[in-house]
């Protein structure tokens, strides 16, 4: 009689099968579809130099807060205070840049204003986290309370200090402050330079190919300008928004922590089964509090980039951003119940959302409100897909 062991029951899977079973596959497919559809509908404009810059700006912006929301959701909690936290941080920085440091401590530099603001937002995150873990209340309700609290506080502060609900027309700090340039300026300019260099070489090369008619050459150059390899016919673009750098950094660190570190294991364990995690010595409460603070950190980065990019801020900033961040996380394959998900999926989700949110600029005949119709539909589909994945893993199907 041949011995059959448990391991024989697990079929070896091929590379493709493994890929298809990955939880990110749904968000990946949606992303590819959107990229394709947008490229066709905008006749390529969405992905020329300027289109890319604009799209990546909003993708990064959404991605930064979505990563914070996603980690927190993996640990089993929600943060509805992201949007108001953005408004609060933006207010705090802008007001300090205009009126100086609090308590008459003198002029504010962009970096100092950021640091003081970050200290406050992290403190808010810490308070929210502590209330949630100590009271055992649902984070949904606790952060909803902070949604109102922070929105109100932001407006009150604006009016008390600036007699207005916004600060606008700040000087452009990017010129003198390295920090402001890192937040609101541009990055990866060399990419566009390299791109331009390739473009000039290619078109120069074309001049010498004899076996093409003049009009064929022109067609080809036109075609290449669709990819904008030669930027002669397009607006001059010198770099991506600095947000892209922050998005890459935050997403990269979050990915590494989740996939490769002890803290990552603890985040998953906390969201999956809090009691069993605790019984095994995982400091569940500290993990949660830390992630509420991380979410506040992401909101602060979002706000800082915005303030130093536009040299202004107002009380309505960050409106709906908490909902968009959660929606992106869900579309990226994060389970509403926690314990499962990956940053790669969230990146796909952010790309999809950013492109769709921006689509109206590239497809003039489309009504911008379709964005929300799309979000609603995709969100629902994603929740069903995620639920299927959860059941598959926990043995339901």
């Amino acid at each position: 009689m041949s011995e059959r062991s448990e391991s024989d029951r697990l079929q070896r899977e091929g590379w493709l099968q493994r890929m298809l079973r990955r939880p990110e596959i749904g968000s990946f497919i949606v992303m590819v579809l959107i990229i394709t559809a947008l490229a066709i509908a905008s006749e390529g404009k969405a992905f020329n130099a300027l289109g890319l810059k604009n799209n990546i700006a909003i993708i990064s912006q959404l991605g930064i807060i979505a990563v914070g929301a996603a980690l927190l959701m993996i640990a089993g909690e929600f943060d509805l205070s992201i949007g108001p936290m953005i408004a609060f941080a933006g207010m705090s920085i802008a007001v300090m840049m205009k009126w100086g440091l609090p308590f008459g401590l003198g002029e504010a530099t962009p970096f100092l204003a950021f640091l003081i603001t970050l200290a406050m937002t992290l403190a808010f995150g810490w308070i929210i986290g502590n209330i949630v873990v100590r009271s055992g209340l649902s984070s949904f309700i606790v952060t909803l309370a902070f949604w109102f609290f922070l929105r109100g506080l932001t407006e009150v502060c604006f009016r008390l200090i600036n007699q207005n609900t916004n600060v606008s027309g700040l000087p452009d700090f990017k010129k003198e402050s390295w920090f402001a340039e890192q937040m609101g300026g541009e990055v990866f300019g060399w990419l566009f330079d390299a791109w331009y260099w390739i473009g000039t070489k290619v078109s120069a090369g074309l001049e010498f190919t004899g076996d093409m008619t003049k009009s064929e050459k022109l067609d080809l150059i036109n075609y290449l300008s669709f990819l904008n390899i030669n930027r002669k016919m397009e607006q001059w673009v010198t770099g991506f928004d600095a947000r892209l750098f922050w998005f890459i950094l935050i997403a990269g660190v979050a990915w590494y922590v989740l996939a490769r570190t002890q803290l990552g294991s603890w985040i998953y364990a906390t969201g999956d089964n809090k009691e069993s995690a605790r019984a095994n010595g995982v400091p569940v409460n500290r993990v949660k509090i830390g992630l509420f603070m991380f979410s506040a950190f992401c909101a602060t980065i979002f706000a800082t980039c915005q303030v130093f990019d536009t040299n202004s801020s107002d009380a309505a900033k960050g409106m709906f951003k908490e909902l968009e961040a959660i929606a992106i996380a869900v579309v990226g394959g994060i389970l509403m119940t926690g314990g499962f998900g990956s940053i790669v999926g969230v990146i796909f989700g952010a790309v999809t959302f950013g492109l769709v949110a921006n689509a109206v600029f590239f497809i003039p005949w489309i009504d911008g409100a379709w964005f929300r119709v799309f979000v609603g539909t995709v969100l629902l589909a994603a929740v069903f897909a995620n639920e299927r994945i959860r059941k598959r893993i926990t043995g339901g199907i």
Partner: protein
Amino acid sequence: MSKQAYMRVENIEKKFGPFIALGGVDLSVYPGEVHALLGDNGAGKSTLIKILSGVHQPSSGSIYIEGAKREFRNPRDAAAAGIGTVYQDLAINQLMSVTRNFFMGRELTSRFGSLRMDEMNQIAHDEMLKIGIDFSDPTQAVGTMSGGQRQTLAIARAIYFGAKVLILDEPTSALGQKQQMEVLKTIKRVRARGDIAIIFITHNEIHSRLIADRYTFLALGKVIGSGTKAELEGEDIRRLMAGGAEIKDLEQELSAI
């Protein structure tokens, strides 16, 4: 009595407000033995093992490890003293991989906090193989494992992290026949190592007869009988399991309905 008890508890009392959950319980466990802890629902079995594993503090009474008095203020203290508890719910996270569960809270990390994943996979696989299951892919989620396999994972984990007393709270209760036998085999293999004392809580008389060396019966928070297999006679066990009521009385009561 040639062997020395690894752990001995004396006169443990536990009150929840006015309610006396345990009213003075004694218990000794020996390496290489299975000690069955039996009793009706609400008798206080789970309360007792929660005290042994540091989850609850006793209202009074003492715990001795290898003769020395110890106090467990939290589960960490108990774990450090070699108490490994496998709870009824197993303390397992379904969505996480076998390896991540195996090392949950005690991950092997390199200097910068990153996980030594390959090493952890290897250890998880080897340790589970030692007590009976060959799980070829430890990166698989635990949700896909059978109940018996999960039990084995929880037991292997407790042993690997240095359990000298392995406490199993109703490990067979939620399982089908075949898987129950798997778990009993696993317990036997652990027993055969000779250096681990096992406390086995069950409602199943047959299971306790199959593997137990020693018995303690609880009813309403007190010990109503204890002894080695040889000391307790067959009929006795059944009577004690029913909380001390005579089977004949029960039969009469049942027929009167």
